[in-house]
């Protein structure tokens, strides 16, 4: 049959050829340039187009919701962008392939040159033909025999490795210095590859979120409901210290990190000293000192209806007033929180007036605060009908209801309008206005100043609840008051810590790559590599040298020959 002969006639299938071509291609600088260009272009697209956020990846519902947003933005094109992987570009398989090619190419370049450089270090060419001394780009000649021993001593003092070959009347000499500095460029290439990997890793896995957590409370880090990687950050203690001018001196927080119900880390964080766990870094990003923990209990059942730590994040004006009797005795001095502005006509046209009731000496007084155009704050004090009250400017005094009233100043007090706040049954509305006075900003005993003017008298704060009853409830920490069937308790002032949580998987890689790059640049640029051959005859000395940097190479070699007792001819090889 013809089969055996046909088989023998067919050329043997060899994988060596294509693989060798691939190997050659991977080492080619042109190929590297093409791949680099493609990766750069794709990365640019990744910056310009929105990318699927980290938290939505792997969660079909979140992914679908995000994609729906993109459909609104891009219309039908969103579908094609998604299918092409352009909306999750840094996770697209083809992007990974491109990056892989770039890294492979760089590694191939490094590996391809590694053996040659290695051989040059451990097995350098010790002898060159005599003709090389007349043709080398960098060469010198002296019309006298150098002192070989002195030459060798001079070379060794300059950290050269020296090998001598005596041949009759002629001595050949080889010397080299810092040969391993040639690895510098390879380290640089390795660093580039690592930077590429770091960029890919960073783009794929960077996570950043900010949490505002009150003392004693916790917050989840990841936006998913339940995840094996979910962590809870609990703030045990938040501290803010300020100087008398209100400038922050120090923010620090005692954190506990939980995963799956177990405490996995306990640490203190500051702005510059984060805490790390599982690749996530927890920084102190902010501090907020005006928090109030409030509880509401239904006295009929004894059940707690509400217990929250509220951030009083707004500021509202509140008059600081002083009331004296006819003898000049001060009967009241302090900040009086006022309610939401009401439009009233006090005889000068409609004005937005914030009202408050104040009990002094067993009598009730109505106070109204407003901002008069071009005149500053104005305070109305009335003991009965508002139309019969007196109006006082800042720093002014006036008599009303048998007392002398003084508007000392207008403070800014921390406040919050809380919707969904439990109001006693039968009371209209669904919100309360909370204001806190006599409160210093910053951790107690550590702060003498405030970022905002300290409201009222420094000391134990007072929380005012407006809206739960006809008159505001004023509560000191730990104090309760009953309104109808509900009991309201001001549990205490609380501080908040702003915690920034970041994960950048690439940071270690970037550090390693930076280290490699620095080491490579130092080796390649700082250490002068030299390799020289000499032929020392009875009447002349010839020298050929290779090295980098070439600047000053000739003068360096002339000094070397001078130390061996010979002077180089003015003519010789080229010099850099």
């Amino acid at each position, binding site marked *: 049959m013809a089969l055996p002969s046909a088989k023998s006639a067919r050329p043997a299938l060899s994988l060596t050829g294509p693989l060798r071509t691939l190997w050659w291609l*991977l080492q080619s600088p042109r190929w590297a340039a093409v791949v680099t260009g493609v990766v750069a272009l794709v990365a640019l697209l990744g910056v310009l187009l929105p990318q699927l956020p980290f938290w939505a990846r792997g969660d079909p519902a979140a992914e679908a919701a995000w994609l729906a947003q993109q459909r609104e933005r891009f219309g039908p094109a969103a579908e094609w962008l998604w299918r092409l992987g352009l909306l999750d570009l840094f996770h697209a398989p083809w992007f990974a392939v491109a990056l892989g090619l770039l890294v492979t190419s760089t590694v191939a370049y490094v590996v391809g040159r590694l053996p040659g450089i290695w051989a040059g270090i451990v097995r350098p060419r010790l002898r060159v033909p005599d003709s090389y001394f007349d043709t080398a780009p960098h060469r010198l000649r002296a019309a006298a025999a150098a002192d070989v021993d002195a030459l060798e001593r001079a070379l060794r003092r300059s950290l050269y490795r020296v090998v001598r070959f005596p041949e009759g009347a002629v001595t050949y000499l080889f010397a080299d210095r810092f040969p391993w500095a040639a690895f510098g460029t390879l380290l640089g290439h390795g660093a580039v590859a690592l930077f590429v990997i770091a960029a890919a890793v960073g783009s794929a896995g960077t996570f950043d979120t900010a949490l505002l957590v009150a003392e004693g409370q916790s917050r989840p880090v990841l936006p998913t409901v339940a995840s*094996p990687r979910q962590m809870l950050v609990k703030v045990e203690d938040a501290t803010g210290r300020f100087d008398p001018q209100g400038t922050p001196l120090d923010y620090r927080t005692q954190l506990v990190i939980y995963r799956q*119900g177990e405490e996995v880390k306990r640490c203190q964080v500051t702005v510059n000293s984060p805490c790390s*766990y599982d690749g996530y870094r927890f920084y102190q990003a902010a501090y907020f000192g005006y928090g109030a923990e409030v509880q509401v209990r239904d006295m009929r059942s004894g059940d707690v209806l*509400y217990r929250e730590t509220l951030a009083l994040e707004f500021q509202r004006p509140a008059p600081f007033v002083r009331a004296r009797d006819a003898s000049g005795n001060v009967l009241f001095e302090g900040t009086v929180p006022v309610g939401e502005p009401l439009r009233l006509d006090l005889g000068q046209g409609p004005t937005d007036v914030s009202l408050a009731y104040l009990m002094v000496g067993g009598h009730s007084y109505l106070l109204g605060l407003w901002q008069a155009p071009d005149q500053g704050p104005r305070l109305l004090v009335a003991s009965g009908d508002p139309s019969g009250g007196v109006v006082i400017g800042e720093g002014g005094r006036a008599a009303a209801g048998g007392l002398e009233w003084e508007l000392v100043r207008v403070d800014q007090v921390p406040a919050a309008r809380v919707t*969904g706040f*439990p109001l006693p049954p039968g009371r209209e509305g669904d919100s309360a206005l909370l204001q806190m006075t006599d409160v210093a900003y910053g951790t107690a005993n550590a702060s003498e100043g405030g970022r905002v003017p300290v409201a009222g008298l420094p000391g134990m704060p007072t929380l005012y609840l407006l809206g739960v009853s006809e008159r505001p409830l004023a509560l000191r920490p730990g104090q309760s008051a009953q309104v109808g069937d509900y009991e309201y308790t001001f549990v205490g002032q609380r501080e908040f810590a702003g915690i920034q949580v970041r994960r950048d998987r690439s940071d270690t890689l970037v550090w390693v790559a930076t280290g490699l790059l620095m080491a490579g640049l130092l080796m390649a640029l700082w250490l002068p590599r030299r390799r020289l051959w000499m032929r020392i005859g009875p009447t002349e000395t010839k020298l050929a040298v290779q090295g980098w940097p070439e600047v000053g190479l000739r003068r360096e070699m002339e000094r070397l020959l001078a130390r061996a007792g010979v002077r180089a001819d003015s003519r010789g090889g080229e010099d850099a």
Partner: protein
Amino acid sequence: MAKRRWGRPLLALAVIALVGLAIWWLEYRPQGGDAVGVGGGPYGPVDLPPGLVTAGTEVGPRTGMLAPDFVLPTLDGRDLRLSELRGQAVVLNFWATWCSPCRREMPLLVGAYRQFRDQGLVVVAVNVQEDVESARRFAREFGLPFPVALDRTGDVTNAYRLLGLPTTFFIDRDGVVRSVFRGPFVAPGQGKDVQEAIDEGELGRRIREVLQ
């Protein structure tokens, strides 16, 4: 010859593998502290006992399906298996202390439990992935009279395919999910007390539905 020919490519592969291993070691290797004491083991989703599977009814966290069974530890140190509550109407509430709406609706669940427990209602509050102390403190503050189960791994929460907290499942006496309520029930305080909020709101209506 073959060795020399393949030496460099193999070295390149080795370098790439080494770099990959280093990256994995530096960035992706699991760190200590991930081990969980209570999670895993006997706790988490379990198959319904064969005798409790109704023919033709699927198991799943949707309306009309048999509620997925699970075993979880409770705050009082017992193990709670959902299928063992068969014969009683169950309000299965997923919550966390950091979830403000969960905190707001919890008094309603307490009130509803007190109101309907004599009719065979059980409330199971599943705390999602928190530490025991936080859950215990919350239960003490709010005086929770019903069992609080601890889903530390989140496996049960995921089995019920939650999109957010709070989420409440209403399971009838046959173990069938009658309705799912995502989000908080309207809390008392808006001119209503707890009793009114239950009676006039979604919570009371859905509880009565599963008690039938």
